[in-house]
């Protein structure tokens, strides 16, 4: 069986599921960030697969945009994590409860 569109979509779906479950299971801000990156990558895979099977460049441009947004997210997100660590000596999201009650 040659890999067809369905196999790429299935791979992408499995990766997305793992990332989504990981976001909920991880308590660590950096771990959650990495799971979100995994979900973005799963979506990128569908874009590239569709771009291949419909011979259209638009999908690959979308991937490019997603990567740029992911880079922005990394810069700002890691900046926030570092400044949070400076204040509370932890990157656990459960400790980010200053505004509670």
């Amino acid at each position, binding site marked *: 069986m040659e890999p067809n569109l369905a196999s790429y979509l299935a791979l992408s779906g499995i990766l997305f599921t793992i990332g989504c479950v990981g976001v909920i299971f991880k308590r660590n801000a950096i771990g959650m960030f990495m799971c979100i990156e995994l979900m973005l990558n799963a979506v990128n895979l569908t874009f590239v697969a569709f771009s291949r099977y419909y*011979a259209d460049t638009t999908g690959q441009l979308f991937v490019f945009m997603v990567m740029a947004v992911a880079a922005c997210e990394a810069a700002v997100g890691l900046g926030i994590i570092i400044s949070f660590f400076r204040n509370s000596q932890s990157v656990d999201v459960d400790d980010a409860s200053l505004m509670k009650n």
Partner: protein
Amino acid sequence: MVGTALFFLFAGFAIMCAISMVYHKNPLYSAISLVGVFISLSCIYVTLAAPFIAAVQILIYAGAIMVLVVFVIMLLNLDDDRPLNRLRYLYAIGGGLGVVLLAQTLFVFYAVLRAPNQPVDPNTSAGKTLTIGQAMYTEYLLPVEIVGVLLMMAIIGSVMLARRLSQPQLELVVEREEELRGEDD
């Protein structure tokens, strides 16, 4: 034949690395596993005739973003992730969500498999660097500009977040804020 073998090799590696990323409590192990996912996905992009995206994937994700993450993990010297002892209901939510998403995936897989097989054009120009560049600077110029502005904002934002004020500067900022607060009252 070769295409099938390559796909299953890289897909298996990607899924294995993704599971290991979620499974490991140590953030550095998670980061290494995620790099494995990125590299195998990039190999899959090559088999999908998108060499430019594959190279950019390695350059940006594996080479820039994850290096930054590893750097932060090393800098903060993080210890292992805490278990979810207080929030046990999250296991149920996560498991349920996983089952729903997997069911959706199976449904999509089934639906696409039943659809008529899409033939692949072997001489497509869709993945070529030239095509992508032309599309980027003619048809999609506005989105590219917006992404450029977004990157600029991210740079300024992260510099503002990470800066450390010296004591006199800090006092100045506090004074100014107090003044502003006084005006509000």
